[in-house]
């Protein structure tokens, strides 16, 4: 049980914790900064692990259950580390009717992973997005932050292959 109200101890010497702490501080370490702080954790660490959730809970003086609840409620947050490369297939309505299911099927056939999964070697993660808002370019795929629009399965697989270097 912590009794002091000062800033909690950082989990490690990792400088990234200071960035997380700064977000919490900017919002007065109030529980309402929870989502903003979780965003910072995910931005800096890539995902939310138990250490991070515990640290955020103590920093914002929020129950761990609430932190865990929010982290699992919102789709944007992930509790598992992502692969080195991320391929996001948009499954918004426009992309869906223009062939997003075929794109996902092609990835599964070639790389053996379904949306939300990562290849065993940790190289590639496949994710889906509800809508990237690039409906004019449907179907759209984002490979490591580069958007590819109006893309077919073959070209997409080639670009993914280039991205992960095989």
């Amino acid at each position: 049980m912590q009794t002091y109200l000062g800033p909690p101890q950082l989990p490690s010497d990792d400088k990234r914790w200071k960035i997380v702490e700064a977000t919490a501080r900017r919002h007065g370490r109030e529980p309402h900064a929870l989502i903003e702080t979780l965003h910072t954790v995910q931005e800096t660490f890539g995902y939310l692990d138990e250490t991070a959730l515990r640290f955020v809970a103590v920093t914002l003086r929020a129950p761990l259950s609430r932190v865990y609840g929010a982290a699992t409620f919102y789709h944007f947050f992930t509790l598992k580390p992502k692969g080195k490369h991320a391929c996001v297939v948009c499954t918004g309505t426009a992309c869906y009717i223009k062939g997003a299911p075929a794109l996902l099927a092609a990835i599964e056939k070639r790389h053996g992973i379904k949306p939300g999964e990562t290849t065993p070697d940790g190289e590639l993660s496949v994710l889906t997005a509800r809508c990237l808002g690039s409906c004019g370019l449907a179907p759209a795929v984002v490979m490591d932050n580069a958007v590819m629009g109006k893309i077919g399965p073959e070209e997409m697989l080639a670009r993914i292959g280039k991205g992960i270097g095989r």
Partner: protein
Amino acid sequence: MTIEELRKIAETEREAQNKCPHKVCVCIAAGCLSSGADQVRDALKREVAESGMQNEVLVKGVGCMGLCSAGPLVSAETQGATQFAAESHLFAGVTSEDAPELIRGLDTGSNGLKRCPTNVPFFERQKKIVLENSGKIDPERIEDYIASDGYVALVTAITEMTPQEVIDQLLRSGLRGRGGAGYPTGLKWSTVAKTGEQEKYVICNADEGDPGAFMDRAVLESDPHRVLEGMAIAAYAVGAQKGFIYVRAEYPLAVKHLKTAIKQAERLGLLGNNISGTRFSFHADIRLGAGAFVCGEETALIASIEGKRGTPRPRPPYPAEEGLWGCPTLINNVETFANVAPIIRNGAEWFAGIGTEKSKGTKVFALAGRVENTGLIEVPMGITLREIIYDIGGGIPEGKQYKAVQTGGPSGGCIPSPHLDSPVDYESLARIGSIMGSGGMIVMDETSCMVDVAKYFMEFCMSESCGKCVPCRAGTQQMHGLLEKIAAGEATPADLALLEELCELVRSTSLCGLGQSAPNPIVTTLKYFRKEYEDHIAGASCPTCHTKEHEEVAR
């Protein structure tokens, strides 16, 4: 900041821009950006610098020009004393390699680039209020916004009008909420204003979650100051001092432009304490969403800003009385706020003169799917669906047949061809079973199977249901299961009856809009395309599903 000071900034900015006879604008909103528009802009700038034409050509990045499918778009405007006086061209699909040719061709007015005619219905049939600056101004420069009469409405409102006068203008304008439900904006404002003197909040709902909708993103990316100005005017009218913009984390560019805009407005004293030397203060802050569709519902959105899980709560009390941290809260959508400044600037009567009797003004739609011209459009209320799809949208590509248009996302419905001539306004769309919604408009042709479409939307609602109330949590799952059964050809007529019963149950007993409207896609497809359901049940192969499999194999 006074009106005079604003005018001075505007004049200086206009002079600086008019110094160059050529103005080259590159669309750097998300659509074009994803096809490399930033590189095009940099290449153009480099080319201008290398050929020493800095005093003749001004290259700037601007917001969305609308025709996203033809991106990256570059417009070149030539004005002044040349023989090609005030000529304007739009180029489509420009690449960085085209930069030298484009710049060299400015003086002669000719080059070999792919031109995009602007005298076509896609541009001519639109009426721009919300998007009037989109594609014209640099969204990252407040001066450019001020040069287009920006912040005049805010300064006028707080120095010359009482809060009640502002609300009266909104009431008379007939503006209705653009988030989808169409509640009169002025009425909402006056409810919040009437709650007396206490802590109040203004929230801008920019959690645009409907798949296939990107209107709000385009507005925030292309003209963020317009939304801030609208929010500040609203805050003045209802007596709030603090505002939040709840924006999707999936829109990084919109967030970046908003952050820049807030900083710039604060620097010029157009946001912050004692704006224009009055007693009115307003601070705006950004809150990021985290990918929960239900947070578009206002009470869920408030819970999310408070740092909780985004689950809705029963209304009343409405947020107007008890909202963020229990305080009266005004929540409007991005597009609603974007309409405010023009209404104050041009008067309520001007706005009320556009549109139909009950739906005033314009509506921005994200036109996508199986249609020739996909992109962002703004049309006057009352235009027919046929005009949007065939005139503006250019019809269905590859000689295919129109089948349905889906409006309102997962809460809306599919409209078949017999209703193509119905006008686009809140009441007419509701009458044919769909809703106006936030503005997603997805056109489908004969290759889309309606059972599959209904299943797609139900899958969406099922996974986005927050789980708080049983009808939505369990109902969407059951409906999805039934649809899967039907799609697989394993269902019986009893399943169809059960599905219809469930639709009614979920609609009438769910806690929030998500559940109440979740059955809509099924209800409308059942109403207009019942035969497709029956064909699936009878085991007859669905011609459309069948074609689709063929297509996928062929690809």
